[in-house]
């Protein structure tokens, strides 16, 4: 299946759910959907196009919004599904019920960007330590790391 055929198929299957579709390079397709259409679009990819392999989820901080990219791999290249949510209300629906392998990446997204993934099967932190202070999301652009002052346990205050 060539890129062009896949783009046509996607247009037929998803119809007006597609906000934007582009094919910037060979075997690379970027598809933009509204957040509310994300889960149905993923279901269509899996059911009708047999694209079952989610490579990873990337979050990008755009300033006042987050862009979330779901990178899928298939036999003829890769397809990235992207969506944008407002930073003021960082919520996105989980795709783990459709793609069970997505849960680790969704947990990483929660830790790194503070995006709340609704209906995630396992909401525990993945990569940050248990005593990580709340409200610190390292991959947000405004977050800067400051080394905490060193204290000696039991030492002088």
């Amino acid at each position, binding site marked *: 299946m060539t890129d062009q055929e896949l783009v046509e198929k996607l247009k037929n299957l998803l119809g007006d759910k597609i906000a934007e579709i582009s094919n910037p*390079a060979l*075997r*690379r397709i970027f598809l933009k959907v509204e957040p509310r259409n994300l889960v149905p679009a993923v279901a269509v990819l899996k059911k009708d196009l047999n694209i*079952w*392999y*989610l*490579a*990873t989820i*990337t979050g*990008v*901080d755009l300033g006042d919004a987050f862009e979330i*990219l779901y*990178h899928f*791999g*298939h*036999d*003829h*290249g*890769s397809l*990235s599904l992207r969506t944008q949510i407002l930073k003021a209300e960082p919520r996105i629906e989980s795709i783990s019920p459709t*793609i*069970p*392998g*997505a*849960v*680790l*990446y969704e947990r*990483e997204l929660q*830790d*790194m960007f503070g995006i709340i993934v609704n209906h995630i099967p396992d909401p525990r*932190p*993945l*990569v*940050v*330590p*248990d*005593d*990580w202070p709340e409200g610190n999301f*390292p*991959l947000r652009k405004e977050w800067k*790391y400051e080394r*905490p002052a060193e204290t000696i346990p039991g030492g002088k205050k």
Partner: protein
Amino acid sequence: MKFTIPIGPQHPALKEPISLRMTVEGEVIRDADIRLGYNHRGLEKLAEERTWIQNIYLTERICGICSHSHATCYVQGVEKLMEITPPKRGLYIRTLVAELERIHSHLLWLGVAGHEAGFDSFFMYTWRDREVVMDILEMISGNRVHYAINALGGVRRDIDELQKKNILDGLEVLKKRSEFYFKIGANEPTFVGRLANVGYLSKERAMELCAVGPTSRASGVARDVRRDDPYAAYDETPFDVCTADSCDVLGRTVVRIKELFESYKISKFLLKNLPAGDIAVKAPRKAKPNEVLSRYEAPRGENMHYIKSNGTDKPERLKVRAPTLANYPATVEMLKNGFIADIPLIFAAIDPCICCAERTVELRDARTGEEKILRFSELRKLADERHKNCPTKRNAEWPF
């Protein structure tokens, strides 16, 4: 009666730190949980503050075994962003180093598998022979581990005729030795008996859980980025994708041995058809605002880098997905209903690379975060409360 036993982050059975928590019933594992975060380095954040060239150095240090794979994945993405095309000869040398790296990584893994299965002479044999390919890599690049062969726009070192001959001789030795291992693998009943039917992962589950690399190929999923989405010189190189149908650790061993032979074949082809010409082109300092998705088949599975540029000499975002992270959900599946004694074997069979999988955040005293469910202060508060409420010792009576 169920017990939860912690394994790691520091444990003699693990080569790198990771925390596994096993819920066991007698000898049988009923549930497994993987806790990451012990080894985090904050690499993706750091990459945003480094220039395109400094990041080659950084990405090469994501992993200590498949160092070339992350660097190549990054470099070929940035080349697309900068709109430069490396010369053919550069791409061939890059691919050659990639295949030699796969050989050394798979030989290393075979040794680890032999060791975990209690077959230590196998471990010593494979690691001895691995030195042959390590010497080849040192001859090409000057380094044994971090080859630093990649540059933006090509590679940094050329191969001459004498080196070519030496590499071909070395590959011949390795091929003979690998045939011997293949024979051992197939004919040594204790070895086969130890590996067969351990760590079962069905094809359906491998697909659902998005497993990658030899782990998924051993479950009959014929996926290989080198074939599906060819990069570097793979579109000109003939090779087969190796699979197995047994879905267990034995299958994963067979797939890796078969891949060794494929790698010998590819390396020979690349050397014999090495085009003449330059090895690199000059790269600009900055990249226009754009985005690119770069994929690479590392020895452990698919690497994926998503790189976004903003017109400066630094990336806006670098997302790294290492294969080990993708294989964790599948590992949990494999561990379930296995035996405690199989943990090292199953875990080793995905060829885990913890330092690859953990690269994203700042490490901030993870020491305290690992085995504890509550914070220490909360724990102390709880202990105080319990002490206040519990009947004092004076009132306690000896039951008999």
